[in-house]
């Protein structure tokens, strides 16, 4: 169960983690700058298990894996969006950051709502509103990568 941070369409990798911080290798330090150009208090307010709800084309822009990495580092348990930018989508899978596509959830869930997610079925439950939304679950191949603990484990190294 987590509280919701809600953002709009086209949340780009520059606002998720601005390029001026990409010289920082330490994940914990980098994570303190997550979202700061559009939500200065995000890193201060986020708690382990919280959820990000975006709009269309979440994570557009750069290939920087630092973007899903800092979201994960901040303890976000899932990102729900109408759609994800392609590179962000595969980066999230490769590092084991759960994401789900669901238009209805993005339209209905509000900031204070408490939400849980079943990753096997893609079912999103909004306990505050007592509603369910059917998200798009991952295909089997991608589930295998996630179950293996990410791409590097999956390739068997």
């Amino acid at each position, binding site marked *: 169960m987590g509280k919701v941070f809600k953002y709009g369409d086209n949340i780009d990798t520059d606002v998720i983690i*601005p390029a001026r911080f990409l*010289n*920082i290798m330490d994940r914990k330090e980098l994570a303190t700058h997550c979202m700061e150009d559009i939500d200065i208090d995000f890193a201060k307010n986020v708690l382990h298990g919280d959820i990000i709800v975006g709009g269309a084309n979440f994570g557009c822009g*750069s*290939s920087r894996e630092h973007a899903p*990495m800092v979201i994960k580092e901040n303890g976000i348990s899932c990102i729900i969006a109408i*759609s994800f930018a*392609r590179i962000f989508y595969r980066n999230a899978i490769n590092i084991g950051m759960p994401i789900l596509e669901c238009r209805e959830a993005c339209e209905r869930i509000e900031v204070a709502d408490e939400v849980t997610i079943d990753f096997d079925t893609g079912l999103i439950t909004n306990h505050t509103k007592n509603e369910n939304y059917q998200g798009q679950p991952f295909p089997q191949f991608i589930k295998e990568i996630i179950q293996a603990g990410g791409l*590097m484990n999956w390739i068997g190294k």
Partner: protein
Amino acid sequence: MGMTMSQKILADKAGLSQVAAGELIYADVDMVLGNDITTPVAIREYEAYHCGEVFNKDKISIVLDHFTPSKDIKAAELCATCRDFANKNNIEHFYDVGTMGIEHALLPEQGIVAAGELIVGADSHTCTYGALGAFSTGFGSTDMAAAMATGKCWFKVPAAIKFELTGKPREWVSGKDIILYIIGKIGVDGALYKSMEFTGEGIRYLSMDDRFTIANMAIEAGAKNGIFPVDESTQAYMKDRVKRPYRVYSADLDAIYDKTYTIDLSAIEPTVAFPHLPENARPAKDATDIKIDQVIIGSCTNGRFSDLAIAAAILKNRRVAKNVRTIIIPATQQIYLDAMKAGYLETFIKAGCAVSTPTCGPCLGGHMGIMAAGERTVATTNRNFIGRMGHVASEVYLASPAVAAASAVRGSICTPDLL
């Protein structure tokens, strides 16, 4: 069932006779690319998993270009990590200060990428090489680590959108205007997860540099890749550069496209994308009241020789406007040298511009042209997101080198014919 050009390359590289949109495949890659921001994260993964020797030292390119020459101690440490890894693994295509250029200008120039190849890179603008008829796409650092270890990468086979280009572009209209116009038409997620396949008789009017610019910005429409057919111009470009056999693919006649757009190149005007998305495209002539503080001509999108030639033609015997900081960055050492021989650097300096060694610097807000609050830049770069080139209250207007150079002279957004 017919396949698109992109699908045919992916099928071959996966050892399959047929693939369809949506299918998940595992394919052999011909080149793996990383830069000074993404490679250190890949190296951390690579070493954490004890991957041993890289799959092929000749099929990995590491280019230090984003914060390079190093802008601070932390960036220097990123570069040192890359340098050590490249030395330890005898990486053939390792480019450091003095030999480096902006990666997506450098790799085609050096013949490192070619038609028909499958190229993956830990940089979103890796889609640039689609101009050569290659399948090339951006990915992240964990993908880069896995690809360096195995020479393979997983792909979801993309559906495609066909862009039928007709007509001949007008004077001062280049690849940048065309791609800004297209993104303005379809939006920043208009080609999400898909291939943008360019076709049509209008392509013959496009130089290779125009095609690189267009393919480069396919990612700004959300595309997985952008790809051009291989014609005489492509073959002429590769002739003295690519020293190995390459393969020319073309789409099947019955290939399936989700959508087809016909783009009349003769109807496109010099175009500017307003803050804060590349889709906010408008004719430059409608934006001439916008005063600017800085002009950047460079980047992997528009820092090539022909871009500098256009800028030099406009700046020759002119001065940039007072209070407009104009920074020109040739994309590679070779372009820098060629621009010097052609007299362009003298033209730029006499016009009041600063000229720099190759770097991605200002494009991503790294260094060399960062803006303060309230400032505006006209840039030939590829993104104008909030805070992209400095303060969150600064603004980036995307434009061609012609519009950027004319704007530098006038001090506000301007097309060359208005000078």
